[in-house]
């Protein structure tokens, strides 16, 4: 329980700082353009600024999420058992350290790869406007055979 609170507070500080960086990375001109187009500030954030900031934030969110995942093994210090702790205990009981550590190594690799893949997909989706020259609409079929 305390572990959740501690990690929640710790990482929310980091994430909010990243959000801030992401939002300020979107140029002031974008907000001004939205304002002069007759949008309110709130509408400008919803339609223009946040969608761009999300793409900017994706890579740093990814790395700090992976970091947090690995850091959670520290919870053993307060007697909470995560997979690292369990593996250590099991390895100690049966005197099979190599097997134990290789097991958690593989587990971490798999979990991290999946997470990374998800974040990559997210980044790709949100920065489409930078990498593609035009939006393919359903009307035009979308698929070039």
């Amino acid at each position, binding site marked *: 329980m305390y572990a959740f609170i501690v990690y929640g507070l710790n990482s929310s500080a980091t994430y909010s700082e990243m959000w801030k960086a992401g939002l300020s990375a979107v140029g002031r*001109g974008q907000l*001004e*353009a*939205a304002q002069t*187009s*007759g949008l309110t500030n709130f509408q400008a954030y919803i339609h223009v600024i946040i969608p761009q900031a999300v793409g900017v934030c994706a890579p740093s969110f990814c790395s700090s999420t992976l970091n947090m995942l690995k850091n959670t093994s520290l919870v053993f210090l307060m007697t909470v058992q995560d997979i690292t702790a369990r593996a250590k205990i099991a390895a100690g009981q049966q005197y099979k350290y190599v097997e134990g550590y290789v097991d958690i190594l593989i587990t971490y690799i798999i979990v991290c790869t999946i997470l990374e893949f998800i974040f990559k997909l997210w980044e790709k989706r949100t920065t489409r*406007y930078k990498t593609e020259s035009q*939006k393919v609409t359903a009307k035009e079929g979308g698929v070039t055979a």
Partner: protein
Amino acid sequence: MIEIKGVKKSFGDNHILKGVDLDIKDGEVIVILGPSGSGKTTFLRCISFLEKADEGKWIENGAEIDLHSADKKQIQQLRRKSGFVFQNYNLFANKTVLENVTLGLTVGEGVPKDEAEKRAMEALKKVGMADRANFYPNALSGGQQQRVGIARAVARNPELILFDEPTSALDPEMVGEVLKVMSELASEGVTMIVVTHELDFAKEAATKVVFMDGGNVIEQGPPEEIFVSPTQERTRQFLSRYLPEFTYNI
């Protein structure tokens, strides 16, 4: 007819605008000329509330809005009546060309999507960008982006379009295509205020030329007057390259 009165603005001790007045009649094309740092851009930004003026009034049909203390509702109202074209285009990077033009209509004014797209396509046709409707801004050249910027302002049918040095970031070839679009708008009777260094455009398209220096309006009048026989020495100096030369044969 819109009257703008006594616009003042300073950044700290630096007085940028020292009380600028401007009358805008319907269909008028006003070109503001002046050296860099004379407050032309700041003036445009003040009357579109991108910068908060220290003093100043916007008078339209007898209704008066204070540029310094206008509330959010009044600001929103005035902004909906005017369009703004930026020096560095400022197209919404995450939106396609078409979405750039429709966003102000659908989200800002609540126009249904179909109608907004129809109006947007008309505006894009006007500026010759209809074939690029599904492109993202980063795939367009500067001149094309600026034309989309103009379409974005035009599509909402504003009473007044403000141009803030629309050609300053473009190469000479692209300047031509943007100015052509602007001249066409001018001949259609769209009311515009244009800050520019393109004196040829001022000469041909303007109905009124305003010369600013040091935060004041030095001189204003029809282009034939300003470009041929300016009364003020400062204007004469600034336009020296463009004034007709007199040669004397004895």
